């Protein structure tokens, strides 16, 4: 395993940047209640105390607010609810999120029609508006949740770092296959269980536990380098499965934060999970290809560089563990 400096750089950068602005998407739901009436729900992530992101919904021209929005602030998110009346319905109209292009947030828009059909769209800073489909397509929604899953893992540096740690521990291809499969199976189980409401984990302790799983891998990687052995090194798939259960809850919180459709939960869940696996496999193959190329190029890393990945995983794990425990205990907000 001659992975080294590169991965350190990779993670050092991702870690700082991704956590600097932990992006939570805003959520707009428009539920049709009559031929020309809708209930609007608008959730904007807050920025601490009484601040919120400057995002505002602009509905199509024919729409008017029946009453003023009722606002509430829960869990550092601002929620507004209000009924809307749209002459001729929303179909074909353009929904725009004002202020989105100035942020780094996404907006997930979910439209539910009277017949239960839904259209889910993801708006980004570069693409802040969309046209409501006259006939919403299931495929559009599928693509949205698939993309959401891939995005979630690629943005989730903690998950990727854990996978990297596993890669640094496993010795051969068969073990690698078993380990990755175990991790996948485990997080799929808890992701499904948490999303469907059979199990739940409160977020702050969960985050701390996920950080702890990364910290746990650090010393094991160092042991591999010293040719020592341990339970983890002999049965990495066991550890992958056990901690995979934790990471699944993490994925579930990511999926929940974006809002799930009411009717097609299973479908959305499946595609979100597939998206996560696509992102994870891409990462695994990328790392393997890079390691292989390093061998081809006959790079002789200095000793400290070889030790770097293990210490990076351990250090970042420790840092996050302390940080998240402090959050958990209320020392910092």
């Amino acid at each position: 395993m001659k992975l080294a400096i590169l991965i350190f750089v990779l993670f050092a950068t991702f870690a700082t940047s991704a956590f600097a602005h932990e992006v939570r998407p805003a959520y707009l739901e428009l539920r049709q209640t009559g031929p020309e009436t809708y209930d609007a729900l608008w959730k904007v992530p807050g920025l601490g105390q009484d601040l919120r992101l400057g995002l505002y919904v602009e509905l199509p021209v024919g729409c008017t607010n029946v009453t003023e929005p009722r606002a509430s602030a829960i869990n550092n998110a601002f929620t507004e609810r209000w009924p809307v009346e749209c002459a001729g319905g929303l179909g074909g109209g353009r929904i725009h999120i004002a202020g989105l292009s100035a942020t780094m947030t996404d907006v997930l828009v979910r439209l539910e029609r009277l017949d239960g059909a839904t259209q889910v769209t993801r708006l980004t800073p570069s693409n802040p508006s969309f046209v409501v489909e006259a006939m919403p397509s299931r495929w559009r929604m599928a693509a949205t949740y698939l993309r959401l899953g891939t995005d979630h893992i690629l943005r989730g540096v903690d998950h990727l770092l854990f996978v990297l740690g596993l890669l640094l521990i496993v010795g051969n291809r068969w073990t690698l296959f078993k380990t990755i499969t175990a991790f996948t199976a485990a997080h799929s189980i808890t992701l499904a269980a948490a999303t469907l409401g059979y199990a739940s984990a409160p977020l702050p302790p969960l985050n701390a536990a996920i950080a702890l799983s990364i910290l746990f891998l650090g010393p094991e990687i160092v042991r591999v380098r010293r040719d020592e052995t341990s339970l983890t090194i002999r049965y990495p798939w066991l550890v992958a499965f056990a901690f995979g259960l934790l990471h699944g809850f993490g994925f579930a919180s990511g999926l929940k934060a974006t809002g799930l459709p009411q009717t097609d939960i299973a479908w959305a869940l499946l595609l979100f999970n597939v998206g996560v696996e696509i992102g994870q496999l891409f990462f695994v193959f990328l790392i393997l290809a890079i390691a292989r190329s390093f061998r081809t190029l006959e790079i002789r890393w200095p000793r400290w560089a070889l030790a770097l990945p293990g210490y990076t995983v351990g250090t970042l794990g420790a840092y996050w563990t302390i940080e998240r425990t402090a959050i958990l205990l209320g020392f910092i907000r």
Partner: protein
Amino acid sequence: MTHMKYQPTRARCGGIAAAIVLLCLDCPRAEAHLVTTGLGPVYDGIAHLALSPADLAVVVVLVLLAAMRGPRQSRWLLALLPTAWIVGGLGGLTFQITASLDWATGLSLLLAGALVAADLNLPLPVVATLAAIIGGFNGFSTGAALARTPHAALELLGILVALIVIVTLIAGVVVPLKAFWMRIAVRVLGSWVAATGLLMIGWSLRA
């Protein structure tokens, strides 16, 4: 261990100096492709490189040039090219010149592509100098394009990661190619790049 040691001497400094001098000569508008992935600035930087065909072609052809000479030159390229690119990029961020550098990119493609096609046994210093100059230059135009984005430094970081990955992966594929016809295939690729570079110069002269 000695392989990865930098020798930040004339090669790189000369490259950067040449890049800066060349830059100050020319002045129409730059055409930048700024990409938003929605995954944050580091990924935006990766996407910026991955979706700039000219930059990609420059990187690929330089890797081909070094990889055809074996692992030693590839290792040097792996150290030099991203460094030069980022140094150039920081220069571009600082000076923010909005000149079109298409002709220079075309020239880099023509030169490096022709060298790949010719399959000359170039010594390491020549390849290293070329990589530093071309990398620094293209980095400069990347930096100038990124100067308008809010998180330019982070995007540069993404570009650095992408460069290291691309150079590593392509060199890993090309270095083991020993079969005669495989080398011919690489040379043909080089000649395609050179031809494209020549045409690019033509387009920018006509524009």
